[in-house]
């Protein structure tokens, strides 16, 4: 690992407990300058707690963290100058207009009146300029989220933290936020630390992904690397209850398969050539008298990666854990 000063974000053994509950359990990560780092995990995995520590809102109970080479505890005030933050709940006062929120944000970072006006013009592609002088209470969810993003960018930070930036947005608004995230990274060289529970979002946006579960990073790499570790193709077989282990035994006897795993009544087969594997899989199971309810072929997703390292689907984890910590 590089020195803290070379990385945009770096943590070593980062840990946070709340009483007896360990929300973040010794996380080591490093985000390079100009990178989009996707922090993927279900609700309650510890994503937001990590973000709150990295953005100086919460002190770690163990380990250390640096943003822009600055210690988030010892140099918290300096860290705040280099970070922009859009938390899970858009931090907006509905009794203010969009322009007032941006101006207040600018003033707190020492911007002059003309700098604030210039910066609002620069951020116009993100904003609904026609609504800028309307109260935020009249904004749609997507408009509010983009205003939140613009407020986080007012002081021209070098690292932007986005905590679940598209949660609760409709698909068109989500796509527009994605476009802005890409543009900010491409045109301004901004480093982005993005948490998400959406596989597609991490896949689409992130240069590298860290998968977090139960407070620990369980896998890390580019989306391509992570998915290639599963295999080029994935054959999924759903069998009757109780037949999965028997199916696994049968399939492990077939040549050319990279790995066979069981998750409930689902048997997942990794293979280099899925189309060639389908027939042998179906024939072998049929010969063994195992009824196949579903048989499908697809390329691996980050959910397969999550499944591989945690034993549960990301979606299942999301729905089971309730609110995030």
């Amino acid at each position, binding site marked *: 690992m590089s020195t803290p000063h070379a990385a*945009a974000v770096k943590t070593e053994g980062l840990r946070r407990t709340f009483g007896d509950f360990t929300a973040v359990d010794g996380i080591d990560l490093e985000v*390079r*300058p*100009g*990178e*989009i780092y996707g922090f993927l995990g279900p609700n309650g995995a510890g994503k937001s707690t990590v973000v709150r520590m990295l*953005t*100086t*809102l*919460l*002190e770690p109970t163990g380990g250390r963290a640096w943003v822009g080479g600055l210690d988030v*505890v010892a140099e*918290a*005030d300096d860290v*705040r*100058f280099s*970070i922009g*933050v859009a*938390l899970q*709940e*858009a*931090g*907006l*006062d*509905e*009794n*203010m207009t969009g322009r*007032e929120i941006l101006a*207040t*944000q600018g*003033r*707190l*970072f*020492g*911007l002059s009146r003309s*700098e604030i006006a*210039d*910066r609002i013009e*620069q951020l116009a592609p993100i904003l609904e300029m026609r609504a800028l002088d309307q*109260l935020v209470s009249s904004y749609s969810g997507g408009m509010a989220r983009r205003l939140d993003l613009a*407020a986080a960018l007012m*002081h*021209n930070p*070098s690292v932007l933290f986005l905590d679940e930036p598209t949660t609760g947005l409709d698909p068109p608004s989500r796509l527009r936020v994605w476009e802005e995230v*890409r543009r900010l*990274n*491409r*045109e*301004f*060289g*901004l*480093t982005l630390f993005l948490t998400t529970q959406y596989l597609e979002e991490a896949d689409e946006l992130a*240069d590298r992904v860290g998968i977090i579960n139960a407070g620990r990073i369980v896998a890390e790499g580019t989306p391509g690397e992570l998915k290639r570790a599963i295999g080029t193709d994935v054959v999924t077989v759903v069998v009757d209850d109780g037949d999965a282990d028997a199916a696994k035994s049968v399939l492990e006897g077939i040549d050319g398969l990279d790995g066979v795993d069981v998750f409930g009544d689902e048997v997942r087969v990794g293979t280099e050539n899925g189309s060639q594997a389908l027939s042998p899989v179906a024939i072998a199971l049929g010969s063994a008298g195992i009824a196949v309810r579903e048989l499908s072929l697809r390329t691996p997703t980050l959910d397969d990666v999550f499944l591989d390292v945690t034993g549960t689907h990301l979606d299942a984890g999301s729905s089971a854990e309730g609110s995030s910590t």
Partner: protein
Amino acid sequence: MTATSTTPRTEIRPRRTGFVHDTVSIARRAIRQLPRDIAFIGPTLFIPLFFLVINVASLSEAAAFVDLGITYEEFQLPVAIVFAVTGVTRAGAMVLDIQNGYFDRLMTTPVSRRALLLGHMVADFVLVVALSVPVMILGFFMGARFDTGLLGVLVFVLIGALWGLGYTGIPYAIALKTGNPGAVNSSFIIFFPFAFLTTAYLPAENLSGWLSTVSTYNPVTYVLGGLRSLFTGWDAAELGKALLATLALAAFTQTLSLLALRGRTSPK
């Protein structure tokens, strides 16, 4: 990775500000919100006007048997001012900031943490002075007159506003400690003993028993005494006691609010 540089194209660079700058920034925001919060200001203004009219109408004849040294309208005007300024606070708005995440947004800026509190209190000061105006106009309309002239009127409003500002420490402490709007609204109950266990309706010498004893320990008694003294002339002793009582209350309540602020803004 799509980017090769971490240097944004804009020349804008954040810079350090000071406590006063931060306080002004927060106060500007809070003051701008005031006229948008009619649901809050309406009842706040109605209560003192209502009590002034009702108290004078219902008690002025009964009070004719008591030597007040001033008219009963003048006797009641300080009570209305204290009602107008006590508990008038943006603490409720601060709770909303905590609930909707705006407080966290502020906490990720380098803003002085104490400015977050003082900025709101500056807005409170502006509000209580503004609320005093219609109460004073009603008082003048009802016949109140200041022998101390315009300066006396200004001192009258200023002492009232300082008292109001001192009291705000209680709702802010509750707001910052609990982050609960219900708890902040309930804090108005704390004002009742201050408002009624005092010389609100009769002078101290006409109070008897436990009420007389309690009123001597109630700072509002001295605030009312100082305010009433301004109708008849400059009385340094009465004004001094009013300021001392205000400062004593402010020292206590603002200590509570600062402790609550420290707890709320601590990243521990």
